[in-house]
């Protein structure tokens, strides 16, 4: 893509180039920094006043959003008053700088910091150590706080962590597959029904519900009462009506690890809408002639579906499946609210939370986070490849 108003650093002298970079970094850092300080000051002010809560809410919203918009405007104004060539050199960084700085602070640098943290024991770094100061490293690496890959070895040897990894595999295998298959079925059925819009909306609706809300909904379905009492949970009421005995399903240790399936159902219920929407769009993109041709050749509806439609939308299926896999890999809220990880239901993300924030074992928690990151790296590489192929950037 050719650029409008292209400027090239190579046309500048060395001094000008250095100046340009100082200006750019300055702009990129200064906008978020001033925004931050201004909002922070406003915040302290709000915290110390005793205005009604709804007033504070409105002021906070206007302050936060308006403040950032105003900053872009002010700094752009300053840069536009500079000589033309300097405007051209610096203006892009008014636009893109804040985003890059925030991404660096919130995601890129934390990867590096968390990796370092994962090499140390539960209390984190020894005094005087900084991940950004290489001269402090040699001393830290010799301190007893440095455990090397010890935390990683512990992950694979500790029983609780093994259980979490096993459960997460169950989540990935059953959760993603069922969501994809159900989404495909609903999309296919809805496509040839008169109630397409209504039925798709209703299956899609759980997407708007939080995991915590969904946990309450399903906890109510799994609610168990002693045998003989009236069951108020739907599942046990059905089971009892058919002559079975009531069980605490997701909290039923006797069937562990299969009680995890009752938690997985919740996420299937939430995610099927997502896969259905994407499949529905993909199915509509299949040229009618291909399907008609197959029908003329005497293919049954089932054959048309399995041999023509599914292969045709395979790309979408892989994308949706990958997305749900990544999603179930990080599943946290449902397990945390439903069982708190008891009854053999811990997953990697709940162990991460427990180790990092409850047990205060930051080294171990960080190692778990790094494991999570490593598992998504193939997807990251795939995304970057796709990007390089499709964009003439």
């Amino acid at each position, binding site marked *: 893509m050719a650029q409008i108003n292209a400027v090239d650093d190579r046309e500048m002298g060395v001094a000008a180039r250095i100046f340009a970079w100082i200006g750019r970094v300055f702009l990129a850092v200064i906008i978020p920094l001033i925004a931050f300080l201004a909002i922070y000051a406003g915040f302290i002010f709000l915290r110390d006043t005793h205005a009604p809560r709804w007033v504070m809410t409105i002021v906070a919203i206007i302050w936060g959003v308006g403040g950032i918009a105003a900053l872009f405007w002010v700094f752009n104004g300053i840069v536009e008053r500079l000589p033309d060539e300097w405007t051209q050199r610096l203006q892009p960084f008014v636009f893109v700088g804040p985003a890059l700085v925030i991404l660096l602070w919130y995601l890129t640098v934390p990867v590096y910091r968390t990796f370092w943290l994962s090499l140390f024991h539960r209390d984190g770094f020894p005094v005087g150590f900084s991940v950004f100061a290489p001269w402090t490293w040699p001393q830290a690496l010799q301190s007893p706080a440095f455990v090397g890959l010890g935390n990683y070895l512990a992950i694979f040897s500790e029983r609780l962590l093994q259980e979490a990894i096993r459960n997460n595999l169950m989540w990935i295998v059953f959760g993603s597959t069922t969501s994809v298959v159900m989404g495909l079925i609903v999309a296919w059925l809805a496509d040839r029904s008169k109630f397409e819009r209504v039925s798709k909306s209703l299956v899609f609706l759980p997407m708007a519900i*939080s995991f915590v809300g969904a946990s309450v909904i399903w906890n109510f379905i799994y609610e168990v009462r002693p045998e003989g009492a009236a069951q108020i949970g739907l599942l046990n009421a059905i089971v009892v009506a058919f002559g079975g005995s009531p069980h605490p399903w997701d909290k039923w240790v006797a069937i562990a690890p299969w009680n995890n399936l009752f938690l997985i159902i919740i996420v299937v219920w939430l995610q099927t809408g997502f896969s259905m929407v994407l499949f529905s769009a993909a199915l509509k993109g299949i040229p009618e002639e291909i399907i008609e041709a197959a029908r003329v050749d005497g293919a049954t509806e089932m054959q048309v579906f399995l041999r023509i439609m599914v292969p045709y939308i395979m790309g979408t299926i892989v994308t949706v499946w990958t997305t749900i896999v990544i999603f179930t890999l990080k599943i946290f809220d449902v397990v945390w609210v439903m069982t708190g990880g008891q009854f053999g239901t811990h997953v990697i993300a709940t162990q991460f939370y427990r180790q990092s924030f409850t047990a205060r074992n930051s080294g171990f928690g960080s190692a778990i986070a790094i494991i999570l990151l490593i598992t998504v790296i193939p997807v990251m590489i795939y995304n970057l490849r796709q990007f390089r192929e499709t964009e003439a950037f």
Partner: protein
Amino acid sequence: MGGQTRTAIVIINIALIVLVLIWSIPTIGLLVSSFRTRFDIQTSGWWSIFPHRAWETVKVVDPKELGLDPDSVMEVEGASGSFEELRQGVESPGGDARVTWVGNKRLGRIEVQKKVWTVNWDFTLDNYRQVVFGSSFEVTRPDGTTETVPGQDMSQAFLNSLAVTIPSTVIPILIAAFAAYAFAWMNFPARRVSFIMVVGLLVVPLQIALVPILSDYNKIGLNGTFLGVWLAHTGFGLALATYLLFNYISTLPRETMESAFIDGASHFTVFTRLVLPLSVPALASFAIFQFLWVWNDYLVALVFLGVDPNFKVVTQRLADLTGTFGNAWHLLTAGAFVTMILPMVIFFALQRFFVRGLLAGSVKG
């Protein structure tokens, strides 16, 4: 669709209706239950709002009037049994009557129950009053006595959620729109490598950042503030926002942009007057996505908002309710619905944009 027989259409529709029912019943059950009285929720399933046959006491008699001897086998209304059996309740052979001895041998009475068609439509707003408001209020028990219960004050959490969610939605959109414009229409050094970073960060799990960011927040006093949560959601949503908006903004018609520049418009003018208005569909798609994500988020709030009850958002309050009142279904059902109402309204009103956003790849890492 051609080529489908009538039977196939019927089967397809029935299968679809069954699936849709399975998907809707959990939410319907919650909604119905939230309007039932505390007593009803605890003693019968929510489906008893549908007509069903239930035992109803039709008369109470004194055993002495019937001349019954408690020490032998007795027969009342066709049901017979010893005293012990009658204490448990005995059904008549036809199954249409049940006889129960209530009380002890000497002073007891006999209740005769018949199965009748009935619906349980005793609806109330008490659950919502108790969950939403902070003040204590009186509830009436089924036996007529009253009890004072403390309110759960979810209205405050609702306001907190709004105060967290709206800036956490608007700020990343604003910052990402500027960045997306720069990536699409401006030339600058490190442009390519910066964008590769954006793409790479799309799938990075946010767990990786929680501990370092929390320690930064502790140092600068941001822990437990809305500002900290806004920035965190901005940071975690920014990669996706930039990527999506870039995909949209970079496809805007080149001629329109060029003619604006020829007319002497600056980048800032083109961005605010031309690009932002043209990008409304993409902005709306991401806004809905981010709004739902932040409103429904639990983990980020849990880590960065902490334990101060005054600042908790709805998901935290609801999770607390599950922990403290795990069996208080009258509170949990109403509470859950309070947390769900706003996302559901937005979802139904703006479903079109939401779907468009998903199709454009709103898939968060």
